[in-house]
């Protein structure tokens, strides 16, 4: 507040241009989101006429959506998949990232480099062999099948490794002297202190798991395992698209990631900064 007051007299053209640009940029990034929300409350006809204000069709859209699609099933499935994946991925990857920094081994940098190389392989290339392997193990249509490939990702391990490098070694030494076991050092000392990194990793992992499309599509073929992205794909693949209903489905689909992001926003920024320091 005080800063604004101090600078008020100096409306220089450069400053005006800067703010105009920022306003424009934020408008451009926020507008699609606004339009999505507004369209969810409008009828198809109104959307076709480019109506930009909230309408009264929200309940109607909700009725069409829930009557035609298993919204509840898809939402709960997605929520279950994403939550369990996130929890497991955070635990396993942070344990690995921690290990890479805290323990000494001749080959640890080599192993890390190999791990990083795996990031170069596109997911689509491993899809078929993985599908073959998983179906032979009988993991089709199961939570385990959908989450296993993403519980230990090179990206997350790297992120935790970078984060751990700023973790004071003295704490670990002190804990060891006090007689704490290695696992308990990790659980009771490391995890609470690294909260910002966990928050950042949780946001990214949850978002990826929530939006995951290709892998769930092939491994979860049973209709009772349908996820939100699959459901949205279905709503769009029709001759006569009901955009009001689709926008409502898309809006609902963004809620969980949005809630998670706002809840962890502060930690998220710290965590990202921490890992790139």
């Amino acid at each position, binding site marked *: 507040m005080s800063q604004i007051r101090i600078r008020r007299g100096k409306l220089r053209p450069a400053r005006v241009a800067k703010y105009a640009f920022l306003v424009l940029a934020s408008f451009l990034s926020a507008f699609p989101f606004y339009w999505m929300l507004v369209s969810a409350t409008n009828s198809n006809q109104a959307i076709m006429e480019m109506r930009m204000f909230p309408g009264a069709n929200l309940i109607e859209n909700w009725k069409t959506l829930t009557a035609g699609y298993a919204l509840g099933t898809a939402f709960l499935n997605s929520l279950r998949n994403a939550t369990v994946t996130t929890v497991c991925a955070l635990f396993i990857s942070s344990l690995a990232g921690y290990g890479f920094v805290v323990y000494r081994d001749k080959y640890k940098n080599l192993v890390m480099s190999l791990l990083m190389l795996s990031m170069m392989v596109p997911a689509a290339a491993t899809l078929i062999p993985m599908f073959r392997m998983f179906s032979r193990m009988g993991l089709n249509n199961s939570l385990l099948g959908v989450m296993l490939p993403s519980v230990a990702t090179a990206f997350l391990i790297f992120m935790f490794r970078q984060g751990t490098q700023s973790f004071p070694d003295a704490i670990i030494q002190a804990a060891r002297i006090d007689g704490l076991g290695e696992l308990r050092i990790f659980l009771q000392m490391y995890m609470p202190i690294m909260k910002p990194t966990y928050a950042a990793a949780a946001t990214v992992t949850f978002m990826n798991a929530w939006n995951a499309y290709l892998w769930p599509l092939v491994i979860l073929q049973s209709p009772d395992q349908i996820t939100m992205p699959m459901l949205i794909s279905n709503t769009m693949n*029709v001759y006569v698209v009901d955009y009001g209903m689709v926008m409502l489905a898309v809006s609902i689909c963004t809620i969980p990631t949005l809630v998670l992001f706002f809840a962890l926003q502060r930690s998220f920024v710290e965590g990202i900064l921490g890992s790139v320091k």
Partner: protein
Amino acid sequence: MKKFLSVLLTVVLLASFAAVAGAEEKTTITVWCWDPAFNIYAMNEAAKVYAQINPDVEIEVIEVASNDCETRQTAAFISGQMDDLPDIVLMQDNSGQKFLSTYPGMYYDLTDKIDYSNFADFKVNYFVSEGRNYAVPFDNGCAAMFIRTDILEEAGYTLADVTDITWSRFIEIGKDVKEKTGVPILTCEMGLADFLMMIPQSAGTWYFDEEGNPNIAGNEVLKATLETIKQMADAGIVYEAVDWAEYISTLNTGKAASTIQGCWILGSVVLAEDQAGKWGVTNIPRLDNIEGATNYSNQGGSSWLVLANSENAEIAADFLNQTFAGSTEFYQTILKSSGAIATYLPAAEGEAYAAPHEFFGGQAVFADIMEFSAQIPKVELRLYNYEARDALRDALQAYRDGGDLDSLMQEAQDTVEFLMME
């Protein structure tokens, strides 16, 4: 007490066996398809028809988007893990040759199960591989011109004036309509790429020759196609919508007077209830000075396939034969409720097809579309349809920007040849 328990247990066991045996008598056929108001509805109606014929069969329809259907089939075929696949799938006609030639033996041979003389030749041909048939044609993609008769009238024309015409006449009328009413005569998606498929087929030509080699450079029909599209765009009579949503909105809000599209667009046209009575349907323009040019073509559409791996393939084939390939009655029902236009030619004789359509000023549009369908030229679709279409789309864009057409078409030919070599 012990005796009583053992008797009880035996009874329970026997009862559960009986229940299992009873359940086994019912065969379940699973189907993957998309669009609840259209394909899924039609499939469920077909299930009702078949329940009268064979009550021991249950049809379970599962909604899967068309791209998702293809992804899952690809994954299953390549990995050899086909347990999760359904018995019947719906497939876009344009994908037919790709799947049949890439995964031979994966689809059930329907040649002797279905009477294909009841379907339009061009449609059957999409799923013929090495002389065998693999699909029951369903959703009609017959191209038609949907046009605002009130706007035409304002400019002094009638529906008859735009029927059986050439593209040059269409452009002429378009200019006149634009001048008198200010409305562009045609709307389509940006780039006019749909016409790159519709126009060549209307003249019985495709991007490939009989051996399957690219037939682009020096192809008179394709050259005329690109020239026509450019003339049309240059004349300023086309509204190019940035995406599908805007395209539909231009139809419904009167920003353009017509669209030339697969007949399935009808479902979107009739959404603008305030325009009831102001629309008409006719055939599409034909190429000027090209031998074999017709006023009929196809855009989109899909067909039912039975998977060879299915334990119930024979029953699934019988189901399709008795419904989608055998019941005129059934097609009347689904037409009335969903506007799903058949490619089963005898269906056109039913009362629902002959009925006048209020939205189109009492025109019997369905009968007209069926009549168009029977006259669509047959073309040989191939594995690389979309790649060739995309190469031509790039050529069209460069041509519209002032490039030399002959060398651009040679370039497109080279691109497709290169892609096919890989």
